[in-house]
C-alpha cells in the first residue's frame, strides 16, 4: 500500500531488493564455529523457509493474524435455473473500499465441464479458492478414471471449507454461488463466509439478495426458456447497477446447459436512463441551496 524505498539486501548485494540475512555474515573473515545459530536457523543465515509459529512468538513479534476485513471486493452475483440449464451473472468490478479500482475482473469462473463458480467478497480469497479447486481437478485428472466432481459435490466441499475456516476465526471472505448440472438437472447452490449453505432455483449474493431476488420470486419459473431467463437476469442486473454503488455497467453471464456445456459470455453493458428530473436537478426542491 505505502511506497517503500528499495531495501538493499545484505545477502544479494547493493542495488538488489531482497531479504536481509537473519545473521549477517562476514564471509571469510570469521573462523569456523564463530557463529552462533539456534538449531532452527539455517547456517547460511537466511530466514528459515518454513515459518515456525512458536519461534515467531518467542521473538516478540506479532501474533498470527486472522482476516479481519476484506480489501478488494466484488459485489453481487445472481443465479437462476431454467429449462435445460442454469445461469450466473455478475459485474466485472473489484472495488477497493469505495474506489472502483479494477474494472475487468472476471468473477465467474469455470471449474470443470459441468460447473461454474461465481464469487463476491474478497478477490484474493476467491483466487485461493480457485487454487484449491484446481488442485481437486488435477487429482481427478491424475486418477484418470473418467470420474470428475459434480457441481453438488463441489458445493458440499466448499461449504465444508468455508465452515471450517469460520470455526478457526479466519474466514475466506466470500459469498459463493455454485452452478452446474447434477445428473443432467440444473443445480444452483450458495455458500457464504460463515459456512451457511443452501441450494434453490434462484439465488443471489450481496446486494442482489435484496434487489434481485424479489424480481426472481415474481418472475422465475423452472421451465423458463433461455431467452426468458436471459431477459430476467438482465433486468435484475440493471436494478443492481442502479441501486448498488459498488457496481459498474459491465456484466458477464455464465451458462451451464445440457446442450452446450459451460460458456462465459464476453462483457456487455446494459442501456440505462439517467434523464430523470431528479438526477438532472437533484437539489430543485431542497432548502438552502442554489
Amino acid at each position, binding site marked *: 500500500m505505502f511506497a517503500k524505498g528499495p531495501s538493499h539486501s545484505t545477502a544479494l548485494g547493493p542495488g538488489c531488493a531482497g531479504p536481509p540475512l537473519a545473521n549477517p555474515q562476514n564471509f571469510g573473515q570469521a573462523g569456523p564455529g564463530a557463529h552462533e545459530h539456534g538449531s532452527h536457523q539455517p547456517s547460511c543465515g537466511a530466514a528459515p523457509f518454513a515459518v515456525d509459529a512458536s519461534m515467531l512468538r518467542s521473538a516478540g513479534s506479532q501474533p498470527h493474524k486472522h482476516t479481519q476485513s476484506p480489501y478488494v471486493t466484488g459485489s453481487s452475483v445472481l443465479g437462476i435455473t431454467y429449462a435445460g440449464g442454469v445461469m450466473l451473472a455478475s459485474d466485472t468490478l473489484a472495488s477497493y473500499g469505495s474506489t472502483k479500482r479494477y474494472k475487468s475482473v472476471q468473477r465467474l469462473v469455470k471449474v470443470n465441464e459441468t460447473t461454474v463458480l461465481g464469487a463476491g467478497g474478497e478477490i484474493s480469497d476467491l483466487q485461493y479458492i480457485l487454487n484449491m479447486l484446481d488442485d481437486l481437478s488435477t487429482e481427478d485428472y491424475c*486418477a484418470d*478414471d*473418467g*470420474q470428475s*466432481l*459434480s457441481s*453438488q*459435490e463441489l458445493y*458440499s*466441499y466448499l461449504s*465444508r471449507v468455508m465452515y471450517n475456516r469460520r470455526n478457526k476465526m479466519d474466514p475466506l471472505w466470500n459469498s459463493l454461488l455454485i452452478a452446474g448440472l447434477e445428473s443432467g438437472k440444473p443445480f444452483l447452490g450458495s455458500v457464504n463466509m460463515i459456512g451457511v449453505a443452501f441450494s434453490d432455483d434462484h439465488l443471489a449474493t450481496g446486494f442482489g439478495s435484496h434487489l434481485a431476488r424479489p424480481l426472481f420470486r415474481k418472475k422465475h419459473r423452472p421451465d423458463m426458456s433461455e431467452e426468458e431467463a436471459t431477459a430476467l437476469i438482465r433486468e435484475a442486473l440493471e436494478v443492481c447497477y442502479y441501486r448498488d454503488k459498488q457496481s459498474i455497467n459491465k456484466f458477464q453471464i455464465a451458462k451451464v446447459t445440457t446442450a452446450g456445456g459451460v460458456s462465459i459470455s464476453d462483457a456487455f453493458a446494459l442501456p440505462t436512463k439517467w434523464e430523470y428530473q431528479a438526477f438532472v436537478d437533484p437539489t430543485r426542491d431542497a432548502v438552502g441551496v442554489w
Partner: protein
Amino acid sequence: MFRNQYDTDVVTWSPQGRIHQVEYAMEAVKQGSTAVALKSNTHVVLATLNRADSELTSSLQKIFKVDDHLGIAASGLISDGRSLCKFMRSECLNHRYVYESAMPVTRLVREVADNAQVCTQRSWKRPYGVGLLVAGQDKSGPRLFYCCPSGNYYEYLAHAIGGRSQAARTYLERKHEEYPEASLDALDFKELDEAALRPYIDALKDAEGGGGGGGTAADDAAPMET
C-alpha cells in the same frame, strides 16, 4: 512352495526378480475359503462359502458392508480383511462428509491398493494376507474389482478367489457372456450358487455331507442387501 534364502523379509529381492514374501501372501489367499463375484449391467453379486469349524459354532463373517453402495468379500486372513474393511468404511464416511455423495469405487480401490503396496515396501511391515472382491455401484454403474496383497487391483466381469477357485473361474469364463443382461434372480440363485458350490460339490462327490450354505450380497441403488 520351497523355502529359499531370499524369503526372510519383504524387502529382499530374489535373483530371479521376485519378492517371495509377497508371493507367499498371495498363497495365503489361495488357501482361504472361496469367494465368488459376478456383475450384470445393473447388479453386482458377491458370495462366500461359509464353513463352520464344528457343530458348536457358526462360520466366520467374510462379507462386509462398507457403505450403502459398496461391499467386499474377503478370502485368506479374514482378520486382515476386517482391518481393511475398517479403513474402507472410514474413507467412504469421510468422502460422504465432505462431498455428500457415494465414494467412487475406483478411487477407494486405488487407496486400498496403495495401502497394500506400502506393506510390501517397509522392513517393519508385512503384506496383507487377504484378497478382497470389491463390489459397488457409483455414477459409472456397477463395478467389480479384485484387490491383491501385492498392491495390484484388477477389474473383473466375474471372478473367484480362494480354495478351489480355479474350477469356479473356469465355469465363470464359460458363462460370463450371459451375465450382462441377466436378472438378479438368475445371477443370485442360479449362477452364483452354481459357480460357488460346484467346485465343492465336485470335490466332495465321494465324501459324506457337503459344504456349508452360501451367503450372498447384492449391490444396487438401494442399500446393500445381505
